């Protein structure tokens, strides 16, 4: 790659694709996430709502892990510079193309010059904007996932900004498809988080566990891609801290103030607070669609049950039929 940059014989490639007109609250390039770099202190990143991300790519007939844009809260606008196909899934953000109202959960042809806008969300927090073939982003440590805290991924390790150009391929005669209404994930303001008791769970007394699993929590004001701080019944642990250890996705940390924190994609890789268990990924995706004030309950499940649920959801995703909207093929 360096030789190409240094060479004077090759003309620089003019990258075309989309140009950001309004960046919105927090819009990030994400692929499935960064794996294999934990030993350098790098976290995963990747889409908070993996199911919606996968659907966005599938509706563009993409490999499921290619780069798309995660738009949090909304206020995003982008102009196509090439003819291609797009799809938006996830949180209910009003979508327009050249001012015309369009549906989420389906693919559309766009032409160079078209303006695509995503308004502010009505329900849910994150939506996914995918393009046929995915955005062409140079990976860092094997992934394009943007982790702002680390300054890694995306175009330059930061959230998208006005005038950023996101390269992609030109696509014509594309397959246009949609996901039937009844197959679309529903977002609401209440989520049940299924949790595998793990890590230091034996340091929480049966009474404390009972409190934890019978209480309702609310999403606090500090909720971001690193983790969701919850507010509600205090939980106490019989130890104050532990030697820092690896934190997996979904781990629920109970710091000294007794208020749980569910750790998500951009979490620190190691930490020293006791953890009561880990929320399964199907449910962290739903949690990540909650805004401040969203209601949460926890339910304990076994590792075997968790595995069954995950494999069942995967099968369901693969078996769900999409509706074809054109007859090119």
């Amino acid at each position, binding site marked *: 790659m360096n030789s190409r940059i240094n060479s004077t014989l090759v003309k620089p490639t003019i990258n075309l694709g989309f140009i950001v007109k309004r960046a919105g609250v927090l819009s990030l390039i994400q692929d499935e996430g960064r794996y294999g770099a934990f030993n*350098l202190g790098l976290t995963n990143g990747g889409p908070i709502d993996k199911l919606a991300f996968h659907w966005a790519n599938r509706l563009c007939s993409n490999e499921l892990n290619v780069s798309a844009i995660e738009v949090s809260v909304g206020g995003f606008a982008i102009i196509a510079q090439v003819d291609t196909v797009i799809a938006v899934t996830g949180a209910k953000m009003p979508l327009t193309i050249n001012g015309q109202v369009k549906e989420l959960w389906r693919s559309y042809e766009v032409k160079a010059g078209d303006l695509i806008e995503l308004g502010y969300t009505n329900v849910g927090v994150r939506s996914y904007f995918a393009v046929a073939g995915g955005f062409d982003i140079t990976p860092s440590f094997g992934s394009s996932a943007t982790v702002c805290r680390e300054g890694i991924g995306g175009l330059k390790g930061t959230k998208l900004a006005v005038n950023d150009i996101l390269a992609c391929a030109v696509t014509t005669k594309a397959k246009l498809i949609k996901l039937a209404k009844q197959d679309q994930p529903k977002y609401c303001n209440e989520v049940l988080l299924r949790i*595998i008791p793990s890590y230091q769970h034996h340091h929480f007394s049966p009474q404390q566990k009972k409190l934890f699993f019978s209480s309702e929590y609310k999403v606090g004001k500090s909720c971001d891609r690193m983790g969701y701080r919850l507010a509600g019944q205090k939980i106490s642990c019989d130890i104050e801290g532990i030697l*820092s250890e690896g934190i997996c996705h979904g781990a629920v940390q109970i710091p000294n103030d007794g208020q749980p924190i569910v750790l998500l994609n951009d979490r620190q890789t190691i930490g020293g607070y006791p953890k009561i268990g880990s929320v399964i990924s199907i449910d962290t995706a739903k949690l990540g669609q909650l805004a401040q004030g969203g209601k949460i309950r926890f339910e304990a499940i076994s590792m075997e049950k968790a595995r069954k649920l995950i494999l069942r959801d995967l099968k369901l995703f693969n078996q769900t039929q999409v509706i074809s909207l054109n007859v090119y093929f």
Partner: protein
Amino acid sequence: MSPELRIEIAGENALIIYFAEQANAEVAAKVQQAQLLIRKTMSNDIIDLIPSYTSMLVVFDLLKVNHQQVANQLRMLLKNLQIYHDTQGALIELPVYYAIESGPDLNVIAKHANLPVEQIITIHQQQEYRVYAIGFAPGFAYLGEVDERIAMPRLSTPRMKVPKGAVAIADRQTAIYPSTSPGGWNIIGQCPVEMFTANKIPTMPVQVGDRVKFKAICKEQFFALGGVLGTTYE
């Protein structure tokens, strides 16, 4: 298998191996040895590993294996985990410009330790440290253990900005800030060596389990090695 070794559930696709209760050099070497073994023999099923003080998080591919299979494989693999002398981790020497202008907390530590500043600097160099963990930020290596005489609790209010390369102490740990960031450790000097370079192989000069020694350099050497004196904001 050492009697203390435990394998426990962490999450839907993760197990955690506990090698011991207390961190020390021998345990760090064990963690590193186990990491090498797992990477070598289980790479098909393993997505990533997080080695730390006394543990290792093992993230596996749920579509290929279940947690019992992984736990069994790990038990078999680590049954005869032996620490050979030549796998005890590389010894890396890192230069440090120790001075009041690069180490604004030297005086505080000296007062706390009731020792002259020069001796704080000497004691910090005498120890051979182990890389116990890497985390907090990309390239941030936790090194232990700092001589008890110069151990120092974290600042009660973390600084908004600690310069890149700052060498610092928190309790019995020491570290080098790989990039400018907020931080609450006590700064005693500055290291001109890059601790994290995204587009370089290796990305970091050290890995978990390696040994580190610090060596004092003068201001001229610090600049010659590419060091840039940072400013610290309270």
